[in-house]
């Protein structure tokens, strides 16, 4: 009893060491947060002033309500990200069900083709995509940007991994009762797979929110900019206003950190299960 209660000294020491290494990992974030709340002249003061001596909360209001319509950029990001996530989850879940639970002709060959496209770097097809988007009038539209990220190989692969774990008995039993595949999909499989679907939804949300390449190539108008594009432009145009640039950067990653902390169990499990990377 006594032995069980006693803390393992070795383990405590290792935990402390790992904590120190972890702090090294967090340092850039802490530095960013602290710089965003400082007066401009203190940003680079050394030794580093981790806790601002003079809290400048108005750095944030200067970014948010300054010359740049940050609220609009934020709204654009939310709109594109939410719609992409909804569409991508739907497309991937349907495909994952088809590829794991329906025995149709040519299934494995088609799945292999989908998987093989993973090898193609997005940058290799930018020129043809750009041409197509011009022709189809999708260039410089949010719709174009949403479609671009909605057909995810990784999403389909990840959800198929999860769906494969459902016993075929459930599906056969439902079939005996005369249920169609579509009914089985949304009445049996989707409710059972809510955690898996949430995992992919969170990942897709994070990847889309962070996407810089898509907006960089396929958007031109300033009023359609997403937050990533806006932050980058803001940092190039603001020159030496580092505290404001940091306030902008914190604003760009904060929603994600919050979503990640709330959904971290799902995210980490999903990554571990599917070995996916955005």
């Amino acid at each position: 009893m006594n032995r069980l209660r006693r803390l393992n000294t070795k383990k405590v020491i290792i935990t402390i060491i790992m904590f120190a290494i972890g702090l090294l990992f967090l340092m850039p974030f802490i530095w960013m947060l602290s710089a965003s709340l400082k007066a401009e002249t203190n940003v680079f003061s050394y030794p580093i002033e981790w806790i601002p001596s003079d809290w400048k909360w108005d750095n944030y209001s200067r970014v948010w309500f300054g010359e740049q319509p940050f609220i609009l950029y934020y709204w654009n990001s939310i709109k594109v990200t939410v719609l992409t996530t909804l569409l991508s989850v739907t497309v991937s879940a349907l495909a994952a069900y088809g590829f794991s639970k329906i025995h149709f002709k040519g299934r494995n060959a088609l799945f292999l083709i989908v998987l093989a496209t993973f090898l193609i770097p997005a940058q290799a097809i930018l020129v043809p995509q750009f041409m197509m988007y011009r022709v189809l009038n999708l260039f410089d539209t949010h719709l174009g940007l949403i479609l671009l990220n909605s057909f995810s190989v990784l999403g389909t692969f990840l959800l198929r991994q999860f769906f494969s774990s459902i016993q075929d008995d459930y599906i056969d039993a439902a079939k005996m009762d005369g249920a169609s595949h579509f009914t089985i999909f949304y009445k049996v499989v989707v409710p059972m797979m809510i955690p898996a679907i949430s995992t992919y939804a969170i990942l897709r949300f994070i990847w889309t929110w962070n996407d810089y390449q898509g907006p960089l190539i396929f958007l031109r108008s300033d009023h359609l900019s997403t937050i990533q594009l806006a932050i980058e432009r803001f940092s190039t145009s603001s020159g030496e206003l580092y505290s404001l640039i940091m306030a902008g950067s914190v604003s760009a990653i904060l929603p994600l950190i919050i979503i990640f902390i709330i959904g971290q169990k799902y995210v980490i499990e999903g990554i571990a299960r599917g070995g996916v990377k955005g």
Partner: protein
Amino acid sequence: MAKNEATTAYQSNTKKQQLGRFKSTKFKENFAGYMFVAPMLIGTTVLIIIPIFIALAVSFTDWVFISGFQSADFVGLENFKTMVQDEPFIQSVVNNIWLILAVPLTMALSLVLAVVINKNVYFKGFFKVIYFMPYISSIVAIAIVFQLLFHPAYGPINEFLMSIGIDNPPKWLADSDWALVSVIIITVWTSIGFNLIIYLAGLQNIPMDLYEAADIDGASAWVKFKNITVPLLSPTTFFLLITGIIYSFKSFELIVVLTEGGPGYSTSVIVYYLYEQAFENLKSGYASAIAITLLGMLLVITAIQWIGQKKWVNY
């Protein structure tokens, strides 16, 4: 006789019916299957498969984007010949090879962290979250912060180096000899979290009794790591290596925001150079040739690893 014939006829009839029913369920099953995968297949075909064939076709032309496609001429392998003599392109390939080195480095660090976190710490979940933070953060924000951290004159990294007595610290991103090193440091920092999570998942699958048996034999921690952990994790290691190398070729956003390939072409990578040719110099034909070459390289590298895995991966 007659009775028998009737029975046979009856039997063959039901067989036909059964076959018919079987055919119709088979048809229904196929149809349902195609309907479910159709959105994904159509999207992939339109947005990825057709474009890759267009890129292949364009790579044999001298098309320049601002002039219409009508003005493009077929030039055969001319673009590919230009490429092998194009200094910045070659430099970009070499830089990509250096970036590949970040992959095993990241994996080694992640493996050590994973082994330690798996058994020897309290608050395991907390550590997973910390190491994972860079992975979920936007590359744009990360690049902007590191531009400041690496600032040659006032950046905290150099202030620290000078305070411990290094008088001439490197100029990092501003110095063509150090810029790529800085990119590699940032890449390792952002990708450890992902590798760590995958390794932790791999560690869960190693049966405990192997370690218990080794304990009975009096094996040291190092021997257990070398003879049990490493070989049994080899499928995970293979997975991380193969995807890590593919991703190292795809690293674009970090370069665009952090360095724009500079100073000079010291941090340019193939995808960045491709982007520059396509969207700044508008040489669509040449950029497509680079794209096809890149895809070819990825296919070859993946095939080599796939064949090589038999030698060192234990399933």
